[in-house]
């Protein structure tokens, strides 16, 4: 039970770090071999699509470059619920539901921005659990003017 709690906390802390734009904090939760993917199924072209795919170095670069780009500054709030945790040896496969809310800076109205599922592989080899990979399976395909910040 303690292990499950640690795993759940890792998922939640990763969401909090991204909510806070604490990208160093987020990467500190990730394994050196971390890989991040956003995947979407398109019923229009009847294909799985990859919308973002980076290794840890790619994520670091993405975060470093963020201030150099013009981006929407509306805060994103991630609400995750861990559904299943399947421990196999030194790693766990974790499936969580994710909703992302966006709050307008001007006026503070909040809207549901995206619904998705997080499929995390978590390393459990000894110390603190770490994210080995995250696949964000996004259901919401209309993202308006989009985002530079991953979910």
């Amino acid at each position, binding site marked *: 039970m303690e292990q499950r709690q640690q795993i759940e906390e890792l998922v939640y802390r990763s969401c909090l770090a991204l909510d806070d734009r604490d990208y160093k904090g987020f990467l500190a939760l990730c394994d050196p071999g971390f890989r991040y993917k956003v995947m979407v199924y398109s019923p229009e072209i009847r294909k799985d*699509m990859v919308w*973002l795919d980076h290794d840890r170095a790619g994520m670091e*670069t993405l975060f470093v470059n963020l201030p150099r*780009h*013009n*981006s929407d500054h509306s805060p994103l709030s991630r609400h995750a619920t861990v559904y299943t945790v399947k421990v196999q040896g030194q790693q766990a496969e974790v499936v969580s539901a994710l909703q992302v809310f966006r709050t307008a800076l001007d006026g503070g109205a909040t809207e549901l921005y995206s619904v998705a599922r997080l499929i995390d592989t978590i390393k459990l080899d000894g110390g603190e659990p770490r994210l080995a990979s995250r696949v964000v399976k996004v259901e919401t395909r209309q*993202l308006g003017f*989009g*985002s*530079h910040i991953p979910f």
Partner: protein
Amino acid sequence: MAKTAMQWNAPPKFPASHYVDSRIYTDQAIHDEEVERLFKPSWIIACHESEIPSAYDYRLFTHPAGVPLIVVRGEDMKVRSFYNICPHRGNTILYDPAGNAKRMTCIFHAWSFDTRGNCIEISRAEQGYQKRFCKEDAGLREVKLEIGFGGFAWVNLDDASCTLREYIGPALDVLDPFMQEPLEVFHFNRAVVNTNYKLWHDTNSEFYHDFVHYFNRITGMMQPGYFDRKYTAFENGHASVGSMSIQYDKYEGSKERAVGWPGLAPGGWYMVDLFPAMTYNLRTSVLRIDTALPLGPNKVAIEFRGLGLKRDTPAQRAQRVFDHNTIWGPFGRNLHEDLLAVHGQGRAMREGTGSRWVIHGREENSTIHDEVGMRHFYAEWSRRMGRKSYDPMREGRPEPARAAA
């Protein structure tokens, strides 16, 4: 110097061809007229042939005029298009955006149609209609469709329209050498933004806005050859932009596009803007197609497609997808910036904001920061609309004197 209301509302000190009245982006009556005069008689990209590779594959497309269309490949492998409207009680025939349907059957009363638009079954026909009406009377409304220019399925609602080739003319000749083999769509994304469709097309018609893109400033604007790219204008409001070599390695975390594109120089980049609102954008390893579909004066749905070669190996395709997403994906560096910019225009120009004019006044010998692409578009817009883009309400505004250099 800041302006008074009178100064703000006075026409800009440019020739009338070099600015537009911002009401062309906000007025409902103008929008409605654009649908009738620009979109209904124009050839519009509905989908790509790779989206319907097999017999009986279909794809739905809502035309900017609001007409729901089915694009379907027949058993003879010919692609045709029909209204997705049952001739019986006006119901939707097909619901899913894509699929495979040997018989297209309306769920309401089970009338069925084949891929040539023939009605092939009316349930309990004789009992209800006796000899007064039969399936031969109940065909679907067919819409003109042609496959061309890279394997796209183009539709035209006007039965009397010119051919697709006549409509495009030589505008896509510059891309012809690069579209000689079958292509395949790997990316589809529809962005709905509160802005006018022309503002998106404007963005695709000028590169002065590279200032919004850190990526383009680093890999393009600061590199040799950038200011040599030239616009070429074509009949029917189309325009193209010549190539340059993008220096991808100048952007941290980016790299040379190794997979390339047959015949295209490494780092090459061509763009062709097609009237009224489509863009071909071939950049090094990916062909991107934008189709802007107006939903109202201040709302547009933009369909983005990313294409590679049908013969791609999995590794080549993965590289193209990566290249595409880095810049043009919904989380990519440039697409968000472009969409944010036109969202900002929509926000500033909507009815009642006091926005008055939009200036297209840059002249740089038709090179990359010249705004000739937009001027060419609005000349055609004015011709087809029967309204001057600088005086759309026909208020008889005299053309202002040319500003002193």
